[in-house]
């Protein structure tokens, strides 16, 4: 299998935060979704991949090449949307086109204007006059217009309304129609990821909690609701996390099929990525 991105043993220590042994690979043509709380280390990892911070340990390869050595290749092949806008506010979308033409060899002016038009963005208004959603769309248009092979997107749908979000997600779907195009994206809006991500990486406090295909996560994990009496009859090892509510217990389980075999009368609910995050971070582990 060919990989668009390989991250191995990534580590970075700050005074109050440490990224520990982050490792994953993104096969070419696939989408990897990054989930985790604010401050979990998603943006730090993304910045490391973009060579924006110095690593303490680990290495990163893009299309099989070391990012530290092949900076020019990395620049041409990657399209980026970061959480905070990196354009000066006095520029207009038209100015951005002029600047990008100089930066990227493959800058496609026609495509850029096409996106500006599709997104209904004003060509000659300063960025500072644009709404949050419009800025995001401008960033996405910019990231796509030099025909990158890998998109790295930090919260690309943040601040967008549901209609705009679905437009943007459709753009990503169009993007991966090409077999050699891949996407790494982080998002708080986990429902967006459920319908598009092939792989999910879940990080918390700088370490990886889960790394699986999205389908496997949604099929294997589940939530069991039960009363105290039943709760006590369930083996400790079958409870990944649990929450004691006022009227019932909720248990996060990691193998629905096995669980159903072992406890045939149990009621198992489907899980969403959001449930999974909340249970993993807020649920208790039975002692």
């Amino acid at each position, binding site marked *: 299998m060919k990989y668009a991105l390989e991250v191995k043993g990534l580590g970075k220590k700050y005074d109050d935060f440490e990224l520990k042994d982050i490792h994953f690979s993104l096969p070419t*043509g*696939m*989408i990897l979704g990054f989930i985790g709380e604010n401050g979990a280390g998603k943006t730090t990892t993304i910045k490391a991949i973009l060579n924006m911070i110095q690593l303490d340990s680990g290495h990163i390869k893009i299309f099989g090449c070391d990012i530290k050595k092949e900076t020019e290749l990395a620049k041409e092949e990657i399209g980026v949307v970061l959480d905070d806008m990196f354009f000066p506010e006095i520029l207009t979308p038209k100015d951005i086109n002029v600047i990008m033409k100089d930066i990227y060899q493959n800058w496609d002016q026609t495509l850029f204007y096409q996106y500006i038009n599709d997104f209904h963005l004003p060509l000659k208004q300063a960025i500072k006059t644009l709404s949050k959603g419009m800025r995001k769309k401008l960033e996405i248009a910019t990231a796509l217009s030099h025909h990158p092979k890998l998109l790295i997107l930090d919260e690309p749908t943040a601040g967008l309304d549901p209609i705009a979000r679905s437009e943007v997600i459709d753009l990503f*779907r*169009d993007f*991966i*129609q090409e*077999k050699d195009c891949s996407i790494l994206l982080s998002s708080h809006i986990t429902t967006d990821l459920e*319908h*598009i*991500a*092939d*792989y999910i990486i879940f990080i918390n406090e700088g370490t990886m909690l889960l790394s699986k*295909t*999205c*389908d496997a996560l949604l*099929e294997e994990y589940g939530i069991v609701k039960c009363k105290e009496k039943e709760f006590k009859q369930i083996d400790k090892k079958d409870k990944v996390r649990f929450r004691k509510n006022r009227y019932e217990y909720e248990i996060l389980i990691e193998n629905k099929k096995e669980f159903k075999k072992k406890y045939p009368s149990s009621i198992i609910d*489907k899980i969403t990525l959001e449930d999974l995050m909340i249970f993993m971070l807020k649920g208790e582990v039975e002692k």
Partner: protein
Amino acid sequence: MEIIISNSSGVPIYEQIKEQIKTEILSGVLKPGENLPSIRSLAKDLRCSVITTKNAYEELEKEGYIKTVPAKGSYIADINIELIREEQLKNIERFVENAVFLAKRNGVSKKELTEIINILYEEDEK
């Protein structure tokens, strides 16, 4: 080809895709040799991930319903639909045999049994 994905049914999405393509093949809507959409375009149109459609196609290939040529795409395999149908009919017969046996033993009339079948059949078509 028509595929309807339900996000609330609890059946994994790749399985829904697989079973529905199978139905289309067995009912003759999709004919041997006919091309299938690429995993990417199918994922886009069904709004699911590429891995999901890839899984569905891989299972269909394993079961002999489709063939995939690298870099070219997938098409319906040259299968003997009659033969598969015959086998499935035998399967069905075996199940119904059990049902009839149970019905007779418990005094359930032929009419009542057909009624049950009718209801179940229609329920599934909703």
